[in-house]
């Protein structure tokens, strides 16, 4: 198997005037292409921070981060942005759809930023919406959709550019169990087609979908379950 990303002694420290908070403390981990990894741990253990760094939304304070064998931890926003939009899709707990744009336009957005022509965009958006079974609502606005539908749109947006990695931060956190399951099944099917998936979750049920669980506590990895195989 090929390594997609590697971190070595990754640390993240937040400083305010008086307080210094260590969110991540020397975290080293490897994720292979095609893996489905769940990151778990109590609130404040650094899960989201780790995910933000893996998604190149944020830089670590210390340590190294290799993304496709490229050391990216010192990259500036511009370069990170280039890598990010080409390779990574995001799914958030609160969906983060743009209210002013309709379903179709929301899904189309990453393709616009990738500079893809409108003809190609149409095909890709339609394909993604079809996969998520949202074609019938493509002219609706986010506020007109149920939470489950919104998250399906968010997943469609995350996959539309065909990224090699999808990062999902509590993707079922705002959904009931039926809708949550639906979304997890979607992610699983994406994973089966070769997309690497990393989710942050509180839910053991969600974690069950993954092949590996990484448990964080106070910014450190305290447990890695390599035995879970589907």
């Amino acid at each position, binding site marked *: 198997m090929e390594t997609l990303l590697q971190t070595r002694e990754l640390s993240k420290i937040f400083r305010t005037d008086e307080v210094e908070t260590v969110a991540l403390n020397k975290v080293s981990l490897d994720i292979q292409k095609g893996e489905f990894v769940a990151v778990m741990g109590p609130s404040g253990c650094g899960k989201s921070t780790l995910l*933000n760094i893996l*998604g190149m*939304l944020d830089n670590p304070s210390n340590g190294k981060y290799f993304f496709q064998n490229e050391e990216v931890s010192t990259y500036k926003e511009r370069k990170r942005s280039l890598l*990010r939009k*080409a390779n990574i899709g995001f799914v958030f707990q609160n969906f*983060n759809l*743009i209210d002013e744009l309709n379903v179709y336009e929301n899904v189309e957005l990453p393709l616009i*930023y990738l500079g893809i022509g409108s003809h190609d965009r149409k095909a890709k958006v339609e394909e993604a919406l079809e996969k998520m079974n949202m074609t019938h609502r493509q002219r609706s606005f986010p*506020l007109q959709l149920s939470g489950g539908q919104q998250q399906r749109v968010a997943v469609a947006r995350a996959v539309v550019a065909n990224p090699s990695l999808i990062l999902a931060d509590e993707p079922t956190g705002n959904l009931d169990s039926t809708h949550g399951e639906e979304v997890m099944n979607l992610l699983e099917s994406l994973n089966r087609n070769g997309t690497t998936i990393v989710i942050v979750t509180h839910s053991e049920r969600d974690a069950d979908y993954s092949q590996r669980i990484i448990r964080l506590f106070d910014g450190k990895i305290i447990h890695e379950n390599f035995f879970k195989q589907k």
Partner: protein
Amino acid sequence: MFKNYLKVALRNLSRHKAFSIINIVGLALGIAISLTIFLWIQDELSYDDFHEKGDRIYRLTVSGSLGKEQFNTINTAAPTARVIANTLPDVRLSTRILKGWQKQVSYKDRIFSEDYFQYADSNFFQLFSFPLLEGDPEKVLRKPNSVVITQTTASRYFDQENPIGKELISDEGRNYIVTGVCKDVPNNSHFHFDLIASLNTFDWISDNNWLQQYFATYFVVKPGCNINNLKEKIQTLAMQYIGPQLEEFLGFTVDEFDSAGNKYEFSLQALRDIHLHSNLEAEFEQNGNFSFVLVFSIIAIFILFMACINFMNLTTSRSAARTREIGIRKALGSSRKQLIVQFLTESIGMTLLALILAFAIMEIILPHFNELAEKNLVFQPFSKWLHAPVFFLLILIIGLLSGSYPAYFLSSFSPLSVLSGKIRQRIKKSYMRSGLVLFQFAISITLIISTINIFNQLRFIDQKDIGISKNHIMVIEHAYSLRGKKEEFKNRIKQHKSILDATTSFTLPGDRFSSSSHHLEGTPEDELHLMHWIHVDYDFISTMDVRLKRGRFFSKNVPGDTLSILLNEAAVKDFGLDNPIGKKVNRPSGDEGMTQKFTVIGVVEDFNYESLHRDVRPLVINLLNEDDYARFIAVKIKAKDKAECIKHIEKEWVDMAHGQAFLYFFLDSYLDRLYKEDKQTGQLFFIFSMLAIFIALLGLYGLSTFITGQRTKEIGIRKVLGASEISIVLMLWKDFSRWVLLANLIAWPLAWVFLDHWLKNFAFNVEISLVSFPLVAIATLVIALLTISVQSVQSALSNPVEALKYE
């Protein structure tokens, strides 16, 4: 609880210092400017309100037409006042004022040049309320050569001495005995005097000539008098007197006069309407303009309103960021009412701060404003007990207006939705908000385009060839002091190599011109042409560079040129002449029943002897003889030797002018006077457009803070999805650009209509500059984008994780 509000309010203010300063200063500036304008308006509306009989005082005016010339003047004939008061029972009292001319007045070694020396009938102080400190109002102006002076004038001449009975000597050789001292004439009077002498000083004033008009006539009417009826009675009565004189002097009847298309009509103006509604010939002073009062009222209200709206916008955009605080307060048990009280307390407190600051700003700007507007406005906010509640009300209204939106809107949500950040989504794009910013920009752009074009026109006035050379012409006043030695004086000063030429005249371009009816021989008797005339000496056209079109100018070598005249092109056209040379023109002379006959010897090219507001009107040029009364000597000098020339001329003047002080001015600045009001308009527009754009930018800043704040999440998402900083900034710019461009589209026709109207005031004007429109559009776009850049760049650069966590 209140202490807690205050604490939070103060901390909020100090935590967001830049924001608080912008917000409070913006509001303070708006209040200060609009209060200043309101002071000005109050002053304009208060003119002549101090006369006890003011509501019953009317001024008589005369309008009509003679040939193609129109006239509309406050000057009436000498007998009018007397005859009307004696005949019509509706008229209780009438008085005449004769506008005096500048003269030098001395007492012992004290000499002053007096600009406000007027003459009036003996009952002047019974009709008008200018309180006398010394003297009996019924007697002070009864005797010839009596003069009443104002308090300030008295102290100028007499210090602590009692002025009564003292003799003042004028440079015309008349002596006046001071018979009374009155309080200074208030600023808000439509005429002013420092000295006012008895009209019967002149023995020619009681004459019966109805055809010569020099006097302003005022009446007090009976209470409840019908003014329209009175007007008609006056018309009928006066024509009974005018008719016979028309026949006697001009040789035709009133009916013939009327049927030839001529008109002669009396009107009455209410005293208190004069300042704002009258703009006739021979007004005492430049009056105000009611449309200005209207326009400025609108501007003042607009500025105040906009400042409030901006204040509200900025406050709201801040309170949206305080939703957490609201949620927590609600969760902890604060009632909605308490929250409303809290927000209103804050906004009223800020308004109070702004008002205090506004008073300070007014202290600074009022002197400058007074200079510009030529006023003596004083701002004493607490001089009257009445003011306190007004300001209290002002604070309350502005505070409530600007605090109500955040107070009522934000406090209405359930604590949970506030805490979970959901209400952010509900404070939707407000078209009202954008609409107001749009409106502000439209007004600013209208003002800016107008300002540019007004200055264009002013520059045009400055540079236009008016047919005479106005630069480097120095004009010496009181030429009559040279008695019969004007030629000798001219020759003596011309000895200097830098003095090129000199001419003596009775009037000068830019001065007031007398007019008379003229008759061309060989045309029907009743075909009269009202024309201005000017008396000049032989050197007029060479000194002033007036261009001779046909014939010749006056010549010393031709005797009898006294009865020769030249016409300007407008006069030739008015007479309808193809070949004017040699034609005879008659003019009734001042002496009863006499008519002067002149022969046309030449035609000069039209030159603008009046302001560029009007076309060049017909002008008759007469020869001024050595012995005639002359007022001016115009001297053409070389620019580089100006100082030396003045010194040389002064030396000769002192030698020859019999003690008359050496007073002079330059023709170009004398002509500039004609455009004083236009220049003031230009300056005011400049100031208002700067102010309006400042307020509009403040509004835009508020709007951009608000909108960018609302779009934080969207911007975060876009960045996560790969949007670059530049694309984010461009996206925000695009949104705001739309508003600014739309504002331009609204403003353009407004500016066009206004400018078209304004430029029509000038007979000679520039075209509206088409370039100024897109230029202003680009300029406003650039400054608008710079203003929002503060916000947009900041949010574009922010870490998207922060933005999303925020939710």
